């Protein structure tokens, strides 16, 4: 029997999830939007009418026109192009932050939940504190040490966000640990590491995935706030948060300047949130009944 044939027979939980997900209109809308956003990110160099850093100092703060569809910013750069290029950055920030924080949080959560005892106690206290410590301040301190910049901002945000993963993964691990198949695995002689990563991890993966989809948008928003404080992306990066932060001075003078990046953030965040909701409902169908 070939591998392909085998695949064709079984319907995995993931496939079932996808089937349910597909029926959720809002989630599918989110997915379609996300696909468009990804396409824009990839195609930005092709579809953007200008370079995102090209200055037209004579055309500063122009309202939307046929020349500049979204208008221009304070240095005469085309806002449309910057918004289009900004998708690359937003996605990178969101996804990387979510992945870094997931990697930290999931590992610690698994260990905490599986081993329990004093390890769990210590880890959870740390989580408690990181979780409720104002994340912006932690991020600020980290950025101050590492220096501002997109990468450092991402690291900083990730370092504040891992706690929620750790918490949820720990909780899930605690409940999965009680499942009989874990005991069965031990009974057939599986090692702890193997149990952690081949048995528990795949079963908490769905929750992690949901969390990641929720985390991506909040990472985008927090990164935007850091840019607001001058600690995030550095100019002339076409970062939406940075654009929004600069645009705030021109809120009444050049409203289009803040509207377009603002709306771009909102759409992206909404898309991820819709997907997250859909995913959660698809993974826990009992909730939708």
């Amino acid at each position, binding site marked *: *029997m070939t591998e392909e044939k*085998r*695949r*064709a*027979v*079984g*319907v*995995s*939980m993931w496939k*079932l999830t996808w089937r349910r997900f597909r029926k959720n209109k809002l989630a599918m809308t989110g997915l379609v939007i996300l696909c468009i956003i990804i396409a824009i990110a990839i195609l930005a160099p092709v579809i953007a009418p200008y370079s995102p850093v090209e200055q037209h100092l004579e055309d500063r703060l122009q309202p939307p026109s046929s020349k500049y569809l979204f208008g221009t910013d304070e240095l005469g750069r085309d806002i449309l192009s910057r918004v289009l290029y900004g998708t690359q950055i937003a996605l990178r920030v969101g996804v990387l932050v979510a992945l870094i924080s997931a990697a930290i949080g999931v590992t610690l959560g698994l260990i905490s939940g599986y081993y329990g005892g004093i390890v769990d*106690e210590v880890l959870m206290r740390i989580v408690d504190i990181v979780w409720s410590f104002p994340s912006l301040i932690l991020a600020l301190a980290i950025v101050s040490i590492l220096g501002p910049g997109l990468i450092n901002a991402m690291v900083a945000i990730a370092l504040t966000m891992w706690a929620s993963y750790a918490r949820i993964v720990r909780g899930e691990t605690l409940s999965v640990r009680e*499942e*009989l*198949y874990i*005991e*069965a*695995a*031990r*009974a*057939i*002689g*599986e090692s702890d590491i193997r149990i952690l990563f081949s*048995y528990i991890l*795949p*079963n908490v*993966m769905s929750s992690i995935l949901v969390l990641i989809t929720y985390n991506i948008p909040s990472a985008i928003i927090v990164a935007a706030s850091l840019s607001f404080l001058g600690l995030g992306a550095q100019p002339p990066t076409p970062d939406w948060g940075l654009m929004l932060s600069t645009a705030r001075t021109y809120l009444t003078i050049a409203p289009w300047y803040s509207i377009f990046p603002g709306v771009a953030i909102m759409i992206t965040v909404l898309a991820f949130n819709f997907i997250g909701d859909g995913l959660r409902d698809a993974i826990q169908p009992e909730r939708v009944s």
Partner: protein
Amino acid sequence: MVRSDLVVVEDLRKYFPIRAGLFKAKGAFVHAVDGVSLTIKRGETFGLAGESGCGKSTFARLLLRLIEPTGGKVLFDGVDIFSLGKKELKKVRKRMGIVFQDPKSSLNPRMTIYNILKRPLEIHGIGSSKEEKLNMVLEILEKVGLGEEHLNRYPHELSGGQQQRVSIARAIITKPDFVALDEPTSALDISVQAQILNLLVKLQREFKLTYLFITHNLMVMQYVSDRVGIMYLGKVVEVLNTREELNMGKVYHPYTAFLMLSTPAVDIRERGRNKIIVPGEVPSPINPPPGCRFHPRCPFAKEKCRRKEPPVMEIRKGHYVACHFPSITEEKLTPYVEERMESIRKLWRGES
């Protein structure tokens, strides 16, 4: 030399500490298994019956060393399994299997049946090639009544009965000597229960397996086991032969008797007869009663029962009872049990 006793359990104990807050609280323990000694003979089905919380599942997990004991010994084929290192334990585990109550929870939902069954082979290095392993998996699947078409399914796509068959297959794929069956049919419907019981009997004969069969259902017990131990609050109160004693109603511990009398009779001709129902409920295993643990519910309890723990007596060859006054049971309860069992037997014979 082949020992006739495959598993020897000596004074096995397991107390679970009750967790509170940051550190473990001292003093409060759940006395799940509290000094159990028994032997399981090669090739037999040893049934362990009792109500929920009596420690029978803990007992099974201790036999496979899935949890560490508080005290006591388990000799598996002469080897004390609690003294083993990781590697040796793995070797012994190859010779043991376990099947749990809840078929759904027993199988990793993210693994295909093939992968679930392949893992024990990989862990224990059975079968050299992929091909060989696949064949072994197919073979065992066939033995438990499933087929190639199930190979790449996920557990959720199977019915409860089928899931339990996979669990059984996983337990016996390493060709073990001993399988612990922890309420393997309790979550199943009657018709499926029958299928699984038949399968288990068939497999036992074919592979010469030794079973520890745990259940709270005395009807299942009387069908499947060769010898039965009755547990109450962490202790074994009676060990007896199934066909000659249990099924004939010859029981000497009041708890065993009450248990049998409480089980609803399927025989409607039994209806209306005076039912004897044991009062009260099982006390908390955190602070088990002193003396005989059954005394608060026992209508025949005397002062001695409250103070002194009854020793295990061999009342007949191979029939052990832990009761100060087995004669009272024999006099007051055993006749009813016998009568009831007789009536059920009639039904069984009549239908067959």
